[in-house]
């Protein structure tokens, strides 16, 4: 697959969020470039692969884990989360309850999976179904910025799987963050924890000042 001199990365990315928020739709849109209003509810976990030509020298393969949204499958999330390096947390802008559940998903994530350096894995918040106009929180973008900072999200995006809005951007942003993490992890100094923390702080103070 890789041409000579080309770097290749394989990343495991989780897609989580309450049921019916459109996780599968987002993945289908992102990977297969199409949308259907009718997907089957995901039972357990489903997989998809997206290959990105990041730049001339890097190919990135994203292994997307589409995880069932119903709470009771959450019991098995420990297995699903293992060794993930990034996550999308999805909510449905037309249903407040799915937004409220975001916190829970994020907490679950931070509880069960960490980067090799002990940090939380980067997570991007997706406000899906933005084509279905919503009254509440979308109006207040600053507020969502604050929310992300407070909850430890790397960034957030308005998305619509139907209209193909925001998904590519969100993915790029997450991948960029993962690559950045990768660099710090790939060349670790034996006891370099302290140094990395310093770097981290210097580099992305605005976006990932998680609690």
């Amino acid at each position, binding site marked *: 697959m890789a041409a000579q001199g080309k770097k290749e990365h394989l990343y495991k990315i989780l897609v989580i969020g309450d049921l019916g928020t459109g996780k599968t739709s987002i993945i289908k849109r992102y990977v297969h470039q199409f949308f259907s209003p*009718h997907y089957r509810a995901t039972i357990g976990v489903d997989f998809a692969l997206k290959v990105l030509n990041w730049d001339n020298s890097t190919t990135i393969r994203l292994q997307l884990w589409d995880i*069932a949204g119903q709470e009771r499958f959450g019991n098995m999330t420990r297995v699903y989360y293992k060794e993930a390096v990034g996550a999308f947390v999805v909510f449905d802008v037309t249903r407040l309850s799915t937004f409220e559940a975001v916190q829970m998903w994020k907490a679950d994530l931070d509880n069960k999976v960490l980067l090799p350096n002990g940090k939380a894995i980067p997570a991007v918040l997706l406000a899906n179904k933005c084509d279905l106009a919503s009254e509440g929180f979308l109006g207040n973008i600053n507020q969502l910025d604050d929310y992300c900072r407070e909850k430890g999200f790397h960034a957030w995006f308005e998305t619509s799987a139907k209209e193909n809005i925001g998904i590519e951007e969100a993915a790029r942003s997450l991948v960029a963050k993962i690559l950045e993490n990768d660099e710090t992890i790939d060349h670790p100094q034996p006891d370099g924890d302290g140094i990395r923390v310093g770097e981290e702080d210097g580099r992305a103070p605005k976006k990932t000042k998680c609690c």
Partner: protein
Amino acid sequence: MDVGHWGRQSIILREARPIDPDVALEQRLSAERGAGGLQLGEGVGKDRRKDKEKGKGKGKGKRKEEGNGGQEVVRGAEAAQNDVSASPRDGAGLSTFSDIPSENGERGRRRVKEEDHYGFLYSISEADKHYTPKVAVETSRIREQKWLDMFAKWDVWMGPKKHKLKERCRKGIPSSMRGRAWQYLCGAHDLLLKNKGLFDHLVSQRDTEIVLNVIDKDLDRTFPSHVLFAKDGSQGQRDLRLVLKAYAIHDPKTGYCQAMAPVAATLLMHMTAEEAFWCLVQICEQYLPGYYSPGLHAFQIDALILKDLLRKYLPVIDRFMDSKLPPNPDESSHKKGLDPVLYCTEWYMSIFSRTLPWPSVLRVWDIFFFEGVKVLHKTALAMLSLAFHSPSDRAECKEFFNLTRRLRDMSVSITHEDVLIPAVVRDEYSGSVSKNEAYSSAREEKMMRSSLKSTIERCLNSERIVIVDSLNYIKGYRYELYCLSKHVKTPQCILHCDVSPDVALTWNSSREDETERYAPDVFDSLVMRYEKPDSRNRWDSPLFVVYPQDPLPAEDILSSLLHRKPPPPNLSTQSQPLSSADFLHDLDRKTQEVVSHVLQAQRTALPGDITLVSCGPRLQQQAPPTSSRYHGRAASAEETVH
């Protein structure tokens, strides 16, 4: 498999009576559920017990002591594989995969072209998944009549004749009878009669939160490609809502799990909402208890069991799944081991209804309703075995993603009912262990020998000739096999390839595949332990001795199997008496149940009331699963309370 070329011998059995092969698997399954990692076949357990009872004078145990002293070393048992009704198919190929998965669920994108035999709408591209099964009209007429006859005398068929019933379920229930048959098989039929009105009552309750938030979201994404559920607000969707709502209210602890929707929908394709509800109750409470409850604990246990079964029966595939598939160069830390829990969730929880082509789904369900949860394991094993049997199949799935894709979109060459179902109902799975591994310790050998024996026992049916070419270099084991054949009243013979140890040694070292060679120490100890067959022993006779340059006396062997009288039965090989040992205890227990029921009824009932006592139609019969929360099955005793 052979015991070195120098001492190759076979015991050939042909038996006349089928033995229920399921008992063994069932016991093994339950043993594995209970004992975690312990992977013992039924035979092994027995042998162990026997060893403990050594000297207590129990016929078999004693004989064993004489024969083997419990110390002999045994080796590997691939031989049991030699009579397999359906062998795994190779070369499934990746041809059906495209980047766009062809799932039932993605209707929007697809031009709907036709409606198949089962009511699924499909496009031409999917045509291979929607073939119509070919059962001759006449055959299905005959089968229908048989089923009608069975419905009329259901208790008899669930009782003494249940082996026959099982066979008929395995052959496939005629589609016109399917709905009714499922209800009868799972006991939903009785429940419905005994709890008339409950469904309507449940349905008339107010919608709970779970109904509004979750169930309603799933209605239009459950089999949207089926005519019944295709249109929003269609009768099918309304029924589905009723059934799921009724269950959520009926069992608030479990509520609604998304995997229940396809199960309920499958039922609704064959019966009314109320009937489907009671079948769902039976599935959730009797067949798969705990599968759908919030923790999904029972399912997770079954996923672990599948893992164990894989390790035991398909060790190559298990290792393949576990192996770290070659990761990308810079990602060496990624483990790609694929645990069953990652792929069997949908299989098990939706009872394969979202995984297999529809004709296969129905066949699996037919068997499932009779045989229960083990059918899930059997189906999973059959699919995995068919999909990854050949090295080339495995080579194609080096990458994690290819592997998961193949697991999700199984090729029709695997899931077609004519391929899959025979593989599901075949009962021979044998552990395969390499020669040297099997001889590594006395314990290992003993286990292999026991499981080989029980496999042989299970393989027996009226039409088969069983060739056992392993582990029988020990006199005592040949005697045991002789008893097996005697037990089923069929002749046997011994074929002995007489080769000197020196020649055998050269043959062994000239084997091309190094893993196929015996290690020197193993070889030596085998030579030392070897017990040559002797035609004066009744268990070693008739004995055919062949030398390397001789032609095989095939004719004689065949006639000794087909035209010779079986050895006369004796007491130790007679079949067990029909009533089990705990019959008295059982009788006592049931009597107490009846009495206590009567007493209780006397306390609460009004004069003239009729009370039904539920204790099953026959004491010995294993009634189908019935929830004790409702009135039990047909009552056998009626008590009038004064």
